[in-house]
């Protein structure tokens, strides 16, 4: 896997010619976004291949969350291109991108607080069901069955994250760590091809982090590609197949964890030489 951006990731004839290599699931090319005078993301390029766990790291203010918001459509890029499964998606509304197969969690768990846990996850099934206003109001034939399917699928996702026993609890009554998991279940319920996790481990204790790492691997094994922003270095070094390092909105390094750990630029500008110390226990 060559991390360097290809010169023609957006070739008009697309996938048919790319028979020699695996088609990237997500391609981000020279994406730029500024807020007023501040350039938050400055010409970043990277690719995520199917089945990968890709880590996105960088100091605070490096532009990681902005990049996430650009990919999932909450922000529009000023310049550059984003393609998912070979199709350009920049400028699409978030709901369209979600339907195309990219789901996400938020840095601060963003649950629907007036609903219970199960209903939250059921919202994730929204685009997988069809009944409209009339069908639901009149309970047209098939609506009850569809509702049951939604409920069962949502329950399954709650079982995946291990919160099935809390299904009927109000979402607002859960502690922080469990809210994270509900959000994850909700994102999984959309049946994404790709999942963006924004600092999934922040605010979790050591045990919860271990469980999360297992869960993330489990999700990958189900064929879902992951892109995660994470501050916990030991976690990201263990989990990720490849890592992109951002600094001041620009990509300064990309590669497998071992390479990133020894990259002098990264150590210099970002990790300040502490990386070996932080991950020494994980090295084999």
């Amino acid at each position: 896997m060559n991390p360097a951006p290809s010169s023609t990731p957006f070739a008009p004839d697309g996938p048919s010619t790319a028979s020699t290599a695996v088609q990237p699931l997500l391609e981000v090319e020279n994406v730029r976004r500024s807020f007023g005078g501040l350039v938050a993301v400055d010409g970043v390029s990277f690719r995520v291949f199917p089945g990968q766990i890709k880590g996105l790291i960088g100091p605070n203010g490096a532009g990681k969350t902005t990049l996430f918001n650009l990919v999932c459509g909450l922000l529009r890029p000023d310049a550059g291109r984003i393609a998912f499964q070979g199709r350009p998606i920049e400028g699409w509304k978030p709901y369209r991108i979600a339907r195309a197969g990219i789901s996400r969690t938020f840095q601060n768990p963003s649950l629907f607080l007036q609903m219970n846990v199960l209903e939250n996850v059921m919202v994730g099934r929204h685009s997988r069901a069809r009944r409209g206003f009339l069908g639901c109001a009149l309970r047209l034939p098939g609506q009850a069955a569809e509702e049951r399917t939604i409920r069962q699928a949502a329950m399954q996702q709650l079982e995946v994250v291990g919160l099935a026993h809390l299904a009927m609890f109000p979402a607002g009554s859960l502690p922080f760590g469990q809210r994270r998991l509900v959000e994850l279940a909700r994102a999984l319920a959309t049946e994404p091809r790709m999942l963006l996790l924004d600092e999934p481990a922040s605010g979790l204790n050591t045990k919860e982090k271990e469980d999360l790492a297992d869960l993330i691997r489990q999700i990958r094994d189900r064929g879902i590609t992951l892109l995660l922003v994470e501050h916990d270095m030991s976690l990201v070094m263990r989990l990720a197949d490849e890592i992109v390092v951002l600094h001041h909105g620009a990509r300064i390094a990309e590669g497998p964890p071992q390479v990133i750990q020894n990259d002098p630029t990264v150590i210099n500008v970002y990790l300040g030489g502490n990386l070996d110390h932080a991950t020494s226990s994980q090295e084999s």
Partner: protein
Amino acid sequence: MSLMRRIPPLLPFLLCAGVMVSLQQLMRATGTQYCLTQLTMSLYYAIVVMGLCLLMGHAGQVSLGHGAFFAIGGYTSAVLTTHNFSAWGHSSLGGWLQQGGVLIAKEDVFGNAILTVSPWAAFLAAMLLTTLVALLIGYPALRLRGHYLAMATLGFGLIVSKLLVGSTLTGAADGINGVPPWPLAGSLTVTGKTAARVQNYYIACALVLLLLLLLRNLLRSRIGRALQAIHDRETAANAMGISTAAYKLKVFLLSAWLAALAGVFFTHFTGGIGPSEAGAFKSVRYVALAAAGGMANLWGVTVVSTALNYASLRGWFGSLDNAVFGILLILIITLAPQGPLKPLGAWLRRVLRLRNLSEERLERS
């Protein structure tokens, strides 16, 4: 929530129907059947508030202009069913419309032959016009949030009410009188005639119950969850695949339809409509009533709004009418933003649980 699950789904509707029947029987027994007129009117007003319950309580979008949609429905029906279209009678279009039952020939109070639009056709026209206006207003306005949306809808309501007062077609400040009865089906007719008072009360009851059932179904479905998701976290809702802009417009349109539907029934029932129906005070009153009923609580909103509108129509508040609803809104927002019913319910549950606990303790000792 857990309490709701144990109640059979149709029980509240049967209970509500029971209350409606006993109210009528009570009024018959006490010889106060004339009060049924105001109760019927209150039920129609409640339909507007049910629409706001959906729009504000569930989807979280404010509207201070729903009086205007009520008026658009009512006025369209009133104008079309009272205006004389006899000039069209000789054209081929007029003849064709007459054959299709859209235009009907009859005599006015002076015995002159006139040609008016049939109530059913006028109803359809009213809903069509409401759809157009709601989409035209909703599309740009729903891009706004919070106070800005409230201001935009308030402005829309003011414009409609000024147009109604300023136009001779809508009878200027007098409004429109002499709106004919609306024969729904068979002998069922929406009319203010004394002989049909009981029948009309039950027509309004049936309409309210039917709409409650449909809206409850809607709220307990993926649509209801989508609306609630927009209310709670619009960004997250969008990221979960919900087209938030489309849903906001659809629920705005639905609530406008409910207001217009109420306006049409109301106008045929009272035989007329005036420009005050579109006024800002009316729109604010609907919002106050929705707040008083708990905003997201469909049953609470319907019951509270029927009761308070009834009191207002019976003149219980005298000349303080608008002040009462203003004060009510202020009190609710400052003291019980979730509506008075929720704290009351929580209090009841606490009392019941305490009693259960003390009983358990008694049994143990």
